[in-house]
């Protein structure tokens, strides 16, 4: 029964979403509140139905209902309880269900929050949200139907992709999709502003917090994706410039640009057109990402299966891009700048530069991602673009961005005097230069590495100088240091939240630099009781054992770290043999540390268990990247707290 009920629920949701979108638009155009009200009810109905569909699918997974093809394809009787829930979004069709449900949730929050405050924009915001939602529900019913009936009903299912049997698969897609879908809200406001001609600053201040939330979840999704790649795939890395990683990274870059350029518009009434373009670009890139992952156009380790779904996504992408650009062209005359750039040495100019670089980075990533397609179209050659290209172009851009991260928040608006520059930057520059010289003297890495690390210290010093000065000012008013700092963070939470996020980026940057520079690895064959040594760690192979898990067989190697702080640590990397997979799946074991991660991957082994080949890696400072995620969370929380400055 579940296939039929599910399909029915989705069809009603589709009709309701289309109805709501149309009625909201008509209501907006004719100024009829009753119609908008009706669209609002439709939005609530769509969310209720999508929730029902999601619950139904979860229920089908939990009860092993193999009459649902999607359940049969992504689970089997041996799949543990926990992974039967994550299997819901483990493949194409279910991922769209999760996506649409989140979009429904965002729509609901928009209704609750903005129905009285967004004035003329609201009907159009609702129309766009429901329109996008209707598209995703359409995908769920036509090209990627999730509730297709399976006939004949098989005795057992195929099972989940073993690589997805990991806790990261609960959080990674959820965070990523909350990010992706979140950008629909600013987009809807942008379109509403264009349609109504109210392209002033109201829409952008209203959506600022939305953009931060979506940006945060996207950042988190990217970081958790890196963590999954690091501890599941067994290659010891966290980022490979794979097309699908790039697809998630590009909207992150443009959204980061947007978060900064919005401030210029708020302060100086500049960049209206630019901000609209960034919102449209960000949302389009999220669609492009979905298109890329699900169309099979570009080969990638992440790619879902192919089908007609790519055509749907490309069609929708085309509609979104063309309509948005046409609206921008239509409103071109009112989008002109009101403020003007007074000086090149100013905060707005630093922000502009930041935007140019972020967009340049987006462009290079985009170019590298679609280049294989271009090469095949133009010259008929099959090529692939690897990490060297992306690193070569992006590392200089990212280093410049880090530099700007120090400059931007401290330099004066409009026109910075020499006095202002000296007061703010003399100290940090000295710190940076001294650090660079010291690193070179100590022989820390190459010029590039020493330079990058010095740069992060420069930025950290800039943040410290600013904080120190602000605390000193409050202490002069008679406050004590710690309460002064606390009060500062809370009263100016937007500014200091941003600083904490900057700190997070620095921590991640140090982690990336360190891990790329100082990680070492070796591969060796050991007999039982023999030791290997790497980077001062001695590791002994104790033995192999075989076991049968609920849905796979497993061969586990036991290794002991013999010396150093990690002495006594037992690591048990394994190979897992799933009946439905052609080749065994590596199970990595590791010991994380602030500086050193010891990371073991089991290779081949003798049948009698007396010898194994093992890959030993000592990865340096990778944990800083995950730590950066924690700091990022704190910073974001701080910056989205309601502003308290006025109350003070």
């Amino acid at each position, binding site marked *: 029964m579940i296939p039929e009920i599910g399909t029915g629920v989705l069809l009603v949701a589709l009709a309701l979403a289309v109805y709501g979108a149309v009625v909201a638009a008509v209501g907006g155009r004719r100024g009829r509140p009753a119609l908008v009200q009706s669209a609002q009810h439709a939005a609530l109905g769509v969310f209720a139905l999508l929730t029902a569909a999601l619950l139904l699918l979860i229920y089908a997974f939990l009860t092993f209902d193999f009459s649902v*093809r999607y359940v*049969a*394809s992504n689970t*089997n009787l041996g799949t543990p309880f926990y992974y039967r829930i994550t299997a819901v979004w483990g493949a194409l069709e279910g991922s769209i269900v999760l996506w649409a449900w989140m979009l429904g949730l965002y729509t609901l929050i928009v209704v609750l929050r903005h129905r009285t405050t967004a004035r003329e924009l609201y009907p159009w915001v609702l129309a766009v949200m429901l329109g996008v939602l209707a598209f995703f529900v359409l995908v769920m019913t036509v090209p990627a139907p999730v509730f297709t009936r*399976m006939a*004949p009903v*098989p*005795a*057992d*299912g*195929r*099972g989940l992709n073993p690589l997805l049997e990991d806790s990261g698969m609960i959080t990674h897609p959820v965070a990523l999709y909350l990010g992706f879908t979140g950008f629909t809200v600013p987009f809807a406001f942008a379109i509403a502003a264009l349609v109504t001609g109210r392209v002033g600053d109201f829409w952008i201040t209203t959506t600022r917090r939305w953009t931060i939330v979506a940006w945060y979840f996207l950042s988190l999704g990217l970081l958790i994706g890196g963590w999954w790649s690091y501890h599941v795939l067994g290659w010891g890395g966290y980022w490979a410039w794979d097309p699908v990683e790039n697809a998630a990274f590009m909207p992150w870059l443009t959204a980061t640009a947007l978060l900064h350029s919005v401030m210029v518009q708020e302060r100086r009434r500049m960049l209206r057109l630019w901000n609209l373009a960034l919102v449209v670009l960000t949302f389009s890139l999220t669609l492009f990402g979905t*298109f890329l992952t699900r*169309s*099979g*156009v*570009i*080969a990638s380790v992440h790619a879902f299966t*192919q089908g007609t779904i*790519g*055509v749907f996504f*490309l069609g929708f*992408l*085309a509609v979104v*891009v*063309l309509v948005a*650009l*046409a609206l*921008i*062209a239509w409103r*071109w*005359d009112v989008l002109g700048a009101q403020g003007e750039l007074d000086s090149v040495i100013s905060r707005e100019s630093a922000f502009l530069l930041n935007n140019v670089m972020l967009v340049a980075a987006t462009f290079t990533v985009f170019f590298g991602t*679609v280049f*294989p*397609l*271009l090469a*095949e*179209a133009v010259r008929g050659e099959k090529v692939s673009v690897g990490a060297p290209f992306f690193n070569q172009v992006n590392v200089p851009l990212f280093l410049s961005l880090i530099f700007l991260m120090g400059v931007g928040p401290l330099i004066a608006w409009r026109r910075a005097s020499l006095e202002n520059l000296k007061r703010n930057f003399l100290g940090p520059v000295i710190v940076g230069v001294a650090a660079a010289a010291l690193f070179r003297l100590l022989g820390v890495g190459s010029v590039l590495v020493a330079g990058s690390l010095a740069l992060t210290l420069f930025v950290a010093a800039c943040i410290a100088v600013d904080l120190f000065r602000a605390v000193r000012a409050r202490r002069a008013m008679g406050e004590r240091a710690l309460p002064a700092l606390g009060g500062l963070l809370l009263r100016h939470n937007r500014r200091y939240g941003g600083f904490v996020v900057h700190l997070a980026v620095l921590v991640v940057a140090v982690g990336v630099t360190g891990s790329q520079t100082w990680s070492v690895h070796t591969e060796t064959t050991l007999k039982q009781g023999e030791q290997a040594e790497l980077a001062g760690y001695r590791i002994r192979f104790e033995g192999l054992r075989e076991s049968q898990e609920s849905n796979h067989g497993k061969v586990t190697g036991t290794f002991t770290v013999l010396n150093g702080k990690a002495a006594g640590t037992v690591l048990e990397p394994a190979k897992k043999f799933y*009946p*439905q*997979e*052609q080749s065994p799946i590596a199970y990595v074991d590791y010991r994380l540390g602030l500086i050193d991660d010891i990371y073991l991957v089991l290779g081949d082994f003798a049948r009698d268990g007396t010898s194994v080949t093992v890959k030993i890696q000592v990865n340096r400072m990778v944990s800083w990247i995950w730590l950066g995620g924690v700091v990022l969370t704190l910073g974001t929380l701080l910056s989205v707290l309601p502003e308290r400055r006025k109350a003070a």
Partner: protein
Amino acid sequence: MRRPWRWLVPLAALPVLALLAYGFRLNPRDIPSPLVGRPAAPFALTSFDGAPVELAALRGKVVVVNFWASWCYPACYEEAPVLERGWQAYRDRGVVVLGIDIQDKDEAGRKFIADFGLTFPNAPDRGGRVSVDYGVYGVPETFFIDRDGHVRVKHVGAVTEPAFRDAVERLLAAGPGAVR
């Protein structure tokens, strides 16, 4: 202010969209098999019914070797009826369809055969030796072998009616001894 050129802005997106649309014509997973043109690896298996299934004994016939598994949805479920119909239509013209069930439980394999009423020989590939010899990457994969025992066509994914007919007709038309 009239700025007619502003309407060119949306057009800027067209080349990118066109390039992406072009991508549908390609299949990035389309990797040519090195086995095509080579002699097919010999194998001798025992079918689910206990009968011997030996490739060498079929020299002189066109052989369609299909690798499948009962857990392979939806592709194996889509192609099973196609293979059965093809076998019925061509068995009198010197075509043999062989199913090889890989990485499967016997019980589930038998149920699959019974569910679809397959009448051509099907054998389990115990130990997976045959699928390794044929470089099977994922199920289903189908190899069309000519009368001289050379692999001529490799089909990845569910076999469709036209794909089956085209390949078989081509190999039948080539006649015996026509080594290319």
